[in-house]
């Protein structure tokens, strides 16, 4: 196994590249935390489908690490208030 596949810093970079390159995700804004045994994804993605896809993708890339889900899908409703600018 190459160093690039095991060192947390390189694993983190590889996950970042994979999330950006995946056509369903094109995701640049996910925060990635890597330990010796786990990868945690944090931040927001637009849909539940993308959340599930991101977790599945990372699990497939690094099957030897547990993938933890700290992602959120932001609420998407019309607002109930407004701001007076001037």
């Amino acid at each position, binding site marked *: 196994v190459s160093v690039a596949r095991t060192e947390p810093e390189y694993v983190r970079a590889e996950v970042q590249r994979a999330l950006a390159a995946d*056509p*369903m*995700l*094109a995701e640049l*804004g996910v*925060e990635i935390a890597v330990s010796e045994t786990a990868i945690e994804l944090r*931040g*927001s993605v*637009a*849909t539940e*489908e*993308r959340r599930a896809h991101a977790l599945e993708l990372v699990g497939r890339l690094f099957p030897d690490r547990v993938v933890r889900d700290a992602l959120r899908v*932001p*609420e*998407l*409703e*019309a*607002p*109930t*208030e*407004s*701001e*007076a*600018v*001037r």
Partner: protein
Amino acid sequence: MIRIAAVGDLHLGPDGFDAWAHALGPVSEQADLLLLAGDLTRRGTYEEGELVVRLLERVRIPIFAVLGNHDHEADRGEELAQLLASAGVAVLEGTYVTTELHGTTVGVAGAKGFGGGFAGACGSEFGEREMKAFIAHTRDRADALGRALAALDCDVRIALLHYAPVDATLHGERREIYPFLGSYLLAEAIDGAGADLVVHGHAHAGVEKGATPAGIPVRNVAQPVIRAAYRLFCFGEPADAREAEACALVAPSR
């Protein structure tokens, strides 16, 4: 009184279409104008552009937009802009558009903007040609935005961007990536020309409210930040109780 809705970073794909269609439903009743602050698509493909057109077809108020970096990923930004324009969306890039709403003239100058960082921690046009090109692009877009804003002779003037013009709306993002999230050159151009409001997106982990050094309110309307389909901004006094209710006023703030 006029009401302006604004949102950025829809990142629309087939999986998000129904939720967006539902969430944008009330916008034509709640607002007089819709501003889109870039990243309408995930990767800027023609198919995603068609999806955006289908989504916006249901909106019955004028729509002014800028593109974002995701809309350029497939290197078809111009085609995407034309597609949106054919559907009636004014896509701004160093340009402006004006409209009259309830007797108030509104001008919106827009540009995608670009990165480079903020004063004291920013790139400069120095060294390799790639580095010069990076900052020169930001400067060029900032200058175009400034000229477009300066040309506006309207009651309400708004600057519409994708990238952030100030770092105040980036708090929550990692500081290391600030230079990829915006540039002070954009704020400098806006302060030079003047505006009533600046709207941007791009910084998903940032905060909503900031101001330029000259005190112009800056609002980060990236969808993950506002956690709503759009933000509403009111200008002018409500004409009657009904308007006042329609614009449940939140105290002016920076």
